[in-house]
């Protein structure tokens, strides 16, 4: 993403100028209002926090990033919210910085490459985002999932399979309805940056998707299990964590045996959900304490198996590697996670409009 200087400073300065400069201490200042995807934190971890500190946790779940952002921007009083890294730049004006120094586990547990996160190609943007990330929580990439019965047990590790095998999979290809990830996938296939701000490249990606459209059965939801189970999704875009969850918790063992998955060599299209504290939070102290609780190794060890994604902390990576040892195609390493070019950044300014227009062309 190319961040015009004035725009970047606007987003950054509006956040820092109007945010409370005082960082909340890590101490109980009320009950905790969580706003997150359903089932994102194991109940045992939440109950443990309630018992340890004598607070009540109220959970609210959102159905989409935009729904979450709209409520956070409207000042609804949530204390702890998860925000995807490609939405974080948009959300910064509504967030307050997190007191990392008050957290006993932050310095030791968070991977060095995530003290300042790798989310944006522009290091200045990452510096701007860093103070707002309480816990970098659920990182995953996009790969290709297929049904062996129709596509064979081995496919080349490239997004080109959607185009090269389109005749074989005609009518049974599913891509995401989320415009940013699907256009990014097509950009990667064409050899361009997944965050391209070049209108010609974005339009070429749209043209490639339009070429593929007669072969696609759906621009569908991000959850891949239903189309694998119904037998309709022969060749699909899929999140790494979602495929783990599908193989281990949704599909029957015989069904799971018939599913193939791999990441593509062009790009991992990484995205990460981050725990943040909204400016409207009435209990930022409890939220800070809760983030420290999440980072504690014994608690964090329970998180990746519950939601399927890697957490870029020492205990998080360890737990993830343990749980995916039978699924080598899901393994990640720190070098991959630190590689900024693998991360999908926020769409902003004129670039946002270019991507929106391209997607309208694809879907019309």
């Amino acid at each position, binding site marked *: 993403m190319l961040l015009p200087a004035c725009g970047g400073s606007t987003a950054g300065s509006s956040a820092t100028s109007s945010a409370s400069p005082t960082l909340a201490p890590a101490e109980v200042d009320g009950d905790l209002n969580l706003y997150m995807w359903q089932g994102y934190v194991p109940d045992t971890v939440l109950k443990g926090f309630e018992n340890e500190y004598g607070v009540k946790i109220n959970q609210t779940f959102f159905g989409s990033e935009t729904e979450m952002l709209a409520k956070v921007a409207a000042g609804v009083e949530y204390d702890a919210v998860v925000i995807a890294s490609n939405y974080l730049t948009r959300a910064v004006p509504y967030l307050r910085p997190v007191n990392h120094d008050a957290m006993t586990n932050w310095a030791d547990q968070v991977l060095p490459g995530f003290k300042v996160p790798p989310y944006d190609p522009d290091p200045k943007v990452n510096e701007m985002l860093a103070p707002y990330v309480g816990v970098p929580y659920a990182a995953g990439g996009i790969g290709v999932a297929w049904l062996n019965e129709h596509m064979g047990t081995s496919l080349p590790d490239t997004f080109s399979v959607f185009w090269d095998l389109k005749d074989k999979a005609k009518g049974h290809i599913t891509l995401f309805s*989320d415009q940013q990830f699907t256009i990014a996938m097509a950009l990667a296939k064409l050899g361009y940056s997944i965050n391209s701000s070049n209108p010609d490249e974005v339009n070429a990606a749209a043209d490639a998707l339009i070429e593929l459209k007669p072969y696609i*059965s759906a621009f569908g939801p991000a959850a891949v299990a239903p189309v694998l189970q119904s037998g309709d999704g022969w060749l699909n875009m899929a999140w790494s964590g979602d495929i783990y969850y599908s193989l281990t918790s949704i599909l029957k063992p015989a069904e799971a045996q018939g599913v193939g998955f791999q990441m593509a060599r062009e790009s991992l299209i990484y995205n990460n959900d981050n725990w943040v504290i909204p400016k409207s939070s009435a209990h930022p102290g409890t939220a800070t304490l809760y983030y420290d609780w999440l980072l504690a190794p014994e608690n964090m060890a329970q998180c990746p198996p519950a939601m399927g994604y890697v957490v870029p902390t020492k205990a998080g990576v360890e737990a993830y590697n343990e749980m995916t040892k039978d699924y080598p195609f899901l393994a990640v390493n720190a070098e991959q996670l630190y590689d900024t070019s693998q991360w999908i950044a926020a769409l902003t*300014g004129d670039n946002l409009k270019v991507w929106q227009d391209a997607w309208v062309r694809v879907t*019309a």
Partner: protein
Amino acid sequence: VSRRKHLLWPGLAGPALLWLTLLYVAPIALVLAMSFASTDFIGRPVYTWQLGNYHTAFQPQFLPTITRSLMFAALVAAICLVIGYPTAYVMSKYGGRYRNLLMLAALVPWLVDYLIRIYAWIQILGGNGLIVRLIGALGLNPHGDLKLLNTSPAVILGLVYNYLPLLIVMCFVAVEQLDDGLIEAGKDLYGRPLAVFLGVTIPNTLSGIVPGVAVVFLLALGDWATVFFLGGPQQFMIGNLIQNQYTSAGSLPFGAALTVLLLAVVMIVIVIAAFAGRRLSGRRVTFV
């Protein structure tokens, strides 16, 4: 005292008026204001006065989506009428003491959440679903490539399934109000059954038919979830275009402009239907 009495009845409408203002007029006013907004650097709406969103909405690239939406909605309304009217008629005229129970039975699917019903159709129409397996077992799918899900018929089926009960209820009420004496009079005048049906029954139940068809048409026109789950990229409708603007990384002001235009179409259809219904049946047609 008379002045107080004078204020009593309008006063009673106060809570309803407040309710309507807060939950209906105010949100629509916000959507209207948003439709003239632009977006800032990070995609947030900035309230201003510009017609760019409407200009975009009238670009030819949206024509296929709009045409498809109108055709799907018209087809769904027509199918619902062909299935729903006879059903309502038979239930009312031949249902005897069970007719109210039968009408409730028609509404039973609505006791289940809309999304769950759509997911049920995914299971039924899917590649490993009941119908495809049955057809395969009968040897009618030798190449194993029969595809029902993510097709136009699947979308039409889903929409008809969802909105048919509405049309049945509206026609049922109209048929219930039909004076049997009129049909007898038609027969007494030596009208053949078909002539009596077309010349007496239909015109006297237009107060149910017209709003029923219009409501089904409008709901199908704005639907997005059915297409999202049962359709594919070739079935994309205007509701999906709007939904894309509100979720995903779309433009809220553009979504608002599309919503306003869709509401305008809805209003026009309602006015035409009310006018046509009144003209044809001589009765007032309402949509409540």
